[in-house]
């Protein structure tokens, strides 16, 4: 009895510690929201808690950045689709086919991580001009997808390596072709790693700034990161609105994360440990 209470006491103690840690980690984000709710504060010291809920920062942010948020969403989702469509088959192939050159390709994905984004953006521009991809949604989706593809391949490959050969052979013995085996057997089994890879590539695409800045010369395709960047230039005095726009930019990603949370840990470890 006494033992049980101390254990539960200790457990709640850990919860309290967890809340404190969380408080420290999330303080900057709290401050972002707090500033957003005090648009009048300007550069005077912001009070720790907003006195009243002044949502004018948000209204002006939504009216000016709402469209850009949608652009970001469209571009990021497109990038995820491209990324998974390209990376998942490759991960499967590299994990299961024992092709000559597989090792080199896996090493190649590592190399991609070394090239600074700015180098890529710089070179891509001229190629994009020749292909007519500048100022297009599709062009930005492709570029943003490239941010996630190497990681997605590595992640999914290490998961798919662990899919037992027998399962795949059984499916093929049933007469399923390579592609059908892949779609109907391998993909469902890899759900966790697929979701994790998708989430990662979404985050990469969502927070991309470099490609949005360099691959567009007009305002036609303007994701929210670029929108906020220009907003700062124009509205420095209006920190409430800038912060409100920042809060808005974090919301879709946060929602996705919460939804996908339970798959993530499973998705990552399923692979990396093997």
């Amino acid at each position: 009895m006494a033992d049980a209470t101390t254990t539960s006491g200790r457990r709640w103690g850990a919860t309290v510690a967890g809340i404190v840690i969380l408080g420290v980690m999330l303080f900057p984000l709290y401050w972002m929201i707090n500033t957003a709710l005090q648009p009048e504060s300007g550069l005077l010291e912001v009070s720790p808690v907003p006195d009243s809920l002044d949502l004018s920062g948000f209204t002006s942010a939504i009216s000016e950045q709402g469209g850009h948020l949608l652009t970001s969403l469209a571009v990021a989702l497109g990038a995820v689709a491209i990324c998974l469509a390209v990376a998942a088959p490759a991960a499967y192939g590299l994990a299961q086919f024992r092709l000559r050159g597989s090792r080199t390709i896996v090493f190649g994905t590592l190399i991609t991580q070394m090239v600074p984004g700015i180098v890529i953006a710089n070179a891509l521009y001229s190629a994009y001009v020749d292909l007519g991809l500048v100022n297009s949604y599709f062009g930005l989706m492709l570029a943003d997808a490239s941010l996630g593809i190497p990681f997605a391949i590595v992640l999914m490959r290490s998961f798919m390596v662990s899919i037992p050969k027998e399962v795949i052979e059984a499916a093929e013995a049933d007469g399923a072709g390579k592609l059908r085996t892949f779609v109907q057997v391998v993909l469902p089994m890899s759900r966790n790693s697929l979701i994790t890879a998708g989430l990662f590539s979404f985050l990469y695409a969502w927070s991309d700034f470099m490609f949005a800045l360099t691959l567009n010369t007009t305002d036609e395709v303007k994701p929210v990161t670029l929108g906020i960047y220009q907003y700062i230039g124009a509205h420095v005095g209006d920190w409430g609105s800038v912060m409100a726009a920042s809060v808005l930019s974090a919301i879709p990603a946060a929602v996705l994360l919460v939804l996908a949370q339970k798959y993530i840990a499973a998705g990552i470890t399923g692979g990396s440990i093997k």
Partner: protein
Amino acid sequence: MPRPRRGRRGRSTTAALTACSALVAGAALTGCGAGRDPGVFTVLNSSTDASYHGWDAATLKRCSAELGLTIEQQSVPAAQVMQKSLRMASSKSLPDVIQFDASEMPTFAEAGGLVDLRSLDLSTKDIPKGIVDFGSYKGTYYGAARTVNTLALFYNKDILKKAGLDVPTTWDEMRQSAKKLTRGSQYGIALSAGGAEDGVFQFAPFMWSNGGDETDLAGPKVAGALDYWKGLIKDRSLSRSTVNWTQADVNDQFMAGNAAMMINGPWQVETLNTKKNLHWGIAQIPVPNTGDASVGPLGGAVLTVPKTEDTGRQKTAAKIIRCMSSEREQITYARNSWMVPANEKAAATWRKEVPELDALADQVATARSRTAKVGARWSSVSLALQSAFQSALTGQSSEAALKKAQSRATSGN
């Protein structure tokens, strides 16, 4: 129902390959469709701020009607104009008119990217020589200014009055006043010593009024100006954060009441006026000694015609510029933006309208262009200078920092 495996495999291969080719084909398909619309003209500027964007839109609407064209405005952040323009040059998709900051224009001209405006029949008859030079590079007139600006001393009337202080006119007075005005969370003065063009723009009037020169950064006069800034920080009448501030940040500080005076430009007036209970005044930037000339940096943007293959369009672009920089538009733009009309007649009209900005108009008349002496090399000089005053303001000696800057600036080119 098992079917022959071979056929299946063939199909799956096809599918995998089609997925790939569809992706690449998609890329190629969107590739079609460049080319210019003959009736639509584009002006590239840095008016990302909503009010500036609106003013330019109104101007372009009037000019569209006058010239019977459709003129579109495309705005990118000021720091992006050069990069975007260069990219567009390589992709042969340059706009018809580009509005460059005057300090950047020589770089684009040097690269061979601009058309001589005189060859497009734009006259410089009513424009003061200083302003023509402002838009010229190596003797060729590439850029027409609508308005120009410079820096001035802005002060909070209420704070100065309460302290019983007059508006400072010399360095000593400014230093003493700033010291007296510093109390609590309020600093005496705010200025930008940020590591970007803003900081250099703000340093220029101190350097020049003291007799210093950008061709000789290691000279004692430049060091004297820098030591003056160091003194303000040492007195604590200037926040150490100055090294991180842009001019917009400085304006924020002033508006929030964190600074009693500031060095800034007329483009901030629009924002300053949004705060009704802020009573600000404007004066010339103080000079080292009574009687010295206050030399400010001439700032502002110039309208240019980038080199494209289509000479017909260039002629029309020149007409657009003529309309945008006409007397009427100059005055309208000056009224909105609080900057000084470039044209002599327009400036005279404008002066009568806003007597409170007289100090500024006088300062503009004697202001100096940053690129007059060093031309396209300005960006190297500017970078070296930024690094120097930042080092000096955070501890190094002015002489040492500037000596290094001079060698950096000259080795750059």
